[in-house]
């Protein structure tokens, strides 16, 4: 018989009782989850619509009285794939809420959900037409001359293209898990290789990159993810806070959105297959994109277990720009762990907000 069993029979009973109670709670909460299916209330931080351009909308968060830093922040997320309410998931677990509480004048560019009528949208248009208008609106609304550009995932790549073409208004650049060296892009780099994938055929067939195909691609990246999610849910089913987070995150994780066809064709060809951000030769709106034009302070955050955008793909940005003030953080967790979940609010957000705050003195 083991020492732990013989020395503490009381402890054993207590643990058994605890486990029994948890199992009862698991069962009742599980039934509740299956039968009630209440829609989680996401995106609750107060916001104001500043500008709308086709499907894309610019939102400003918080109240004037909360804003302490003169330099506004424009967050540029991924286009298509998923909805941006992940950044404002629910009170107490919201990146935007955190940034507003830290006194930032925070703006979010919601690219919107694109339909068939947007299939002709290109990366050129996003970088040289939509982003400049949104930046202009941010500066005008905040009465500022400069801003901090915060890109997440694909948004960081688009933001980097924008900053290299129009460096003047960008005071600081933050790259949260955004790919820059696409040949270090993990499984996607292998799967999207031009020897194996005929992207023209896909886009010519569907006109768009359908949400279902995007879902399939992401599920393939980590086929065991659903199993892990479900076992973790069962394990924590007795914990109300965990379930609340799970329901909100699960809603987001299963809401895939399509990517406009021409945008995706260009994204795969010029970024993944030809790696033009590193190798050079990327021309957007008739202008050559050279990341060496970026001279502002730069923070790059990579996630150690990021299988969507491996940390080294994001890290490459520090070597491609001309900035003298650069910092690279590699934090535990995966791609989503940087912007949602308890780990993010503990390990990531405070470090990001502190870095920006130190550089948001004068606009």
């Amino acid at each position: 018989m083991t020492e732990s069993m013989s020395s503490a029979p009381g402890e054993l009973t207590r643990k058994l009782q605890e486990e029994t109670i948890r199992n009862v709670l698991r069962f009742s909460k599980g039934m509740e989850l299956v039968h009630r299916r209440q829609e989680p209330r996401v995106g609750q931080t107060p916001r104001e619509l500043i500008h709308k351009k086709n499907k894309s909308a610019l939102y400003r968060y918080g109240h004037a009285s909360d804003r302490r830093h003169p330099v506004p922040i424009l967050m540029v997320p991924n286009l298509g794939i998923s909805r941006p309410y992940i950044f404002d998931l629910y009170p107490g677990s919201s990146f935007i809420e955190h940034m507003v509480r830290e006194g930032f004048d925070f703006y979010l560019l919601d690219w919107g959900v694109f339909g068939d009528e947007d299939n002709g949208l290109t990366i050129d248009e996003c970088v040289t037409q939509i982003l400049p208008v949104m930046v202009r609106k941010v500066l005008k609304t905040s009465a500022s001359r400069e801003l901090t550009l915060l890109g997440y995932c694909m948004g960081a790549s688009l933001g980097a293209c924008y900053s290299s073409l129009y460096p003047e208004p960008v005071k600081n650049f933050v790259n949260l898990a955004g790919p820059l060296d696409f040949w270090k892009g993990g499984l996607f780099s292998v799967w999207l290789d031009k020897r194996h994938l005929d992207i023209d055929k896909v886009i010519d067939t569907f006109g768009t990159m359908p949400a279902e195909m995007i879902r399939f691609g992401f599920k393939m990246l980590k086929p065991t993810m659903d199993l892990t999610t479900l076992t973790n849910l069962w394990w924590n089913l007795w914990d109300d806070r965990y379930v609340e987070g799970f329901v909100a995150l699960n809603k987001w994780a299963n809401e895939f959105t399509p990517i406009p066809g021409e945008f995706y064709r260009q994204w795969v060809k010029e970024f993944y297959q030809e790696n033009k951000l590193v190798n050079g030769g990327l021309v957007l709106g008739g202008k050559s994109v050279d990341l060496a034009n970026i001279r502002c302070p730069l923070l790059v955050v990579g996630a150690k277990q990021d299988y969507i955008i491996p940390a080294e793909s994001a890290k490459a940005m520090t070597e491609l720009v001309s900035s003298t003030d650069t910092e690279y953080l590699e934090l535990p967790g995966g791609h989503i762990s940087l912007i949602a979940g308890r780990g993010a609010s503990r390990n990531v957000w405070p470090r990001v907000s502190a870095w920006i705050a130190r550089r948001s003195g004068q606009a």
Partner: protein
Amino acid sequence: MSETPINQEFFSVWIRSMEQGMEAWLRLVGQPHTSDASQFWRPMFGQSLDIWTQILKQGAGSPDVLVQWKRFLDDSVDAWSKVLEQAMGTEGFAAAMGKFLDQYLNAVGPMRKSLQSSNEEFLRTMNLPSRKQVTDLASQIVSLEARLEALETRIEDLVESISLIEGVVKRPGGT
């Protein structure tokens, strides 16, 4: 615990099935045969073995066995995930997936086209706009909106320039 012949037999059957599984995986991903079968599965075996050893050391009666079981499950899934990632990261797998997609598109493409044309034919007969006509109209509205916005921006620029000039003119000493 001493090993009985039944255990040994079971173990050798298990090893054989694992070797065959590995061969199947390697064939699927187009990798050459390796002489060391365990190399492919080692990450999963190693972790599973460690965890089971710990569980057995703790004693089966401990309530912590559930925690251990959860850890075992997590680590096993993790190990499986690594194995799958290793397999899916190969050129062979990417080529196989590309081929599958190509075949899927070959089947779906003509079907979509014929469905679209028959739908359009039906809608035309019913004197209703087709999907393409509606999306074309939406695209036109989008481009009109963009042109309006460009005009708005130019007007804003002009107003700004005018107010700057006015400021210079009104300033004492300005001409």
